[in-house]
């Protein structure tokens, strides 16, 4: 109940900030509004996104980029730079706990992160070189693809891996972790490692290109393709994301595509929201929030597509 009051309160702050601005009341363009309305709105929106991202099992970046690029006046370059930072900050915050609990595995993550971080640099360079409408259109199509993936993808809590492939055996990618939910040790190993490496090359490219955290793709690749238990997939995905987004963020920073007035309130709002979100998970069904996120992504994806194609500016 306290959380719901908090959501209502943030909505009131946002609406009162907008209404207090004379330019908004007069229906004037975004550039005529007081500067503080936008970072304040960004903070509030990111706070709410942070709250729903954790229970929905998605990183903040995948919600942030299509929504902020679709409905805020910032150029897509700055939105993607901030999107990477939002995803990076969330992943870095969660990383220590996951590593200590053995729910993210270094031996599993390192080879995949190496290829994905290299390709994310290429993705970032390509993304910053392409015209914004082209990236916006591709972003819309990608977000709609993610919606389809989220609706269709099955999950396997404990995939059966009969025997590891030779690369996984050479890299000694296997282990044991303690599953507190089932209160037992889970022994795991992986297969199809070469295919996994190729997939992570592509995932890194998309992360850098669109400024998305790539948890939506990491988890299915680890769980369904490589046979990593679901809990370990989710933890290792966040850890991989913290490495991949680091390399892409440097490219955006060096190209001047990280604007403090966009990035800072987004990161701070998302982190605060994520702390609340972890508590929200205990009182609202994750499946309900997941449906809400799918609906939001569908709307944001269609908006990005329409904006990119010049159908709705």
């Amino acid at each position, binding site marked *: 109940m306290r959380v719901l009051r908090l959501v209502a309160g943030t909505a009131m702050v946002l609406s009162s900030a907008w209404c207090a601005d004379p330019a908004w009341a007069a229906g004037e363009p*975004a*550039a005529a*509004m007081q*500067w*503080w309305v*936008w*970072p304040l709105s960004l903070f509030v929106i990111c706070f709410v996104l942070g709250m729903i991202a954790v229970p929905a099992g998605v990183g903040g970046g995948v919600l942030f980029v299509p929504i902020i690029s679709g409905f805020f*006046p*910032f*150029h897509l*370059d*700055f939105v993607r*730079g901030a999107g990477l*930072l939002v995803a*990076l*900050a969330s992943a*870095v*915050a969660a*990383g*220590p706990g996951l*590593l*200590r*609990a*053995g*729910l*993210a*595995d*270094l031996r599993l993550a*390192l*080879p995949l992160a*190496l290829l994905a*971080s*290299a390709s994310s*640099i290429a993705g970032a*360079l390509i993304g910053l*070189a392409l015209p*914004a409408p082209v990236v916006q259109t591709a972003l819309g199509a990608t977000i709609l693809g993610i919606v389809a993936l989220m609706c269709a993808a099955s999950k396997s809590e404990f995939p059966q891996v009969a025997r590891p492939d030779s690369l996984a055996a*050479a890299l000694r990618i296997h*282990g*044991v*972790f*303690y599953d*507190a939910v089932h209160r037992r040790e889970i022994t795991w190993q992986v297969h199809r490692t070469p295919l996994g490496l190729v997939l992570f090359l592509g995932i890194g490219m998309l992360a850098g290109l669109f400024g998305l955290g790539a948890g939506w793709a990491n988890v299915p690749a680890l769980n369904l393709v490589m046979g990593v238990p679901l809990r370990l997939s989710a933890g290792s995905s966040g850890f991989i994301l*913290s490495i991949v987004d*680091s*390399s892409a*963020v*440097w*490219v955006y920073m*060096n*190209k*001047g595509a*990280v*604007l*403090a*007035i*966009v990035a*800072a309130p987004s*990161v*701070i709002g998302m982190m605060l929201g994520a702390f609340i979100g972890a508590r929200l998970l205990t009182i609202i069904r994750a499946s309900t929030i997941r449906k809400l996120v799918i609906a939001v992504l569908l709307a944001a994806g269609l908006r990005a597509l329409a904006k990119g194609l010049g159908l709705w500016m």
Partner: protein
Amino acid sequence: MDVKDEGEKRRAYASPEQLRYARVLEAGMKLGLCVLVAGFLGYVSGVVPAHVPLAQLPALWSLAAPDYLRATGMPQGWGWLAMLGSGDILPLIGITVLAGISMLCFIALLPLYAARRDWIYLTITVLEIGVLALAASGLLTAGH
């Protein structure tokens, strides 16, 4: 099994490399966030004057990054280090800590992999440091 036992049991499954990585990552994350929040408050409160006045931003943030840099005279790459007295530059310090902490974590792993004679993972770690350093150096974006 009480909560403390549960936590200890979980930690028993983390390798020494993971525990060291986690320690460095946590310290960097806390430092980065504190510096980011402090820098942003100094910026938006006007305590530290900005290179680009806040009131002018709505006319500028819809420009593409290269056009924004041209219009404002902001530098590319690491040129912002020469402008640390500007409010709009201050939050970049926290962002740099957050972006750079992974590289420090990998550097901290090197002695452990070397002591264990785990040459494959030592090589992977060195390569990852190289990738991150290359991205951070600005060499790939220079001249565009």
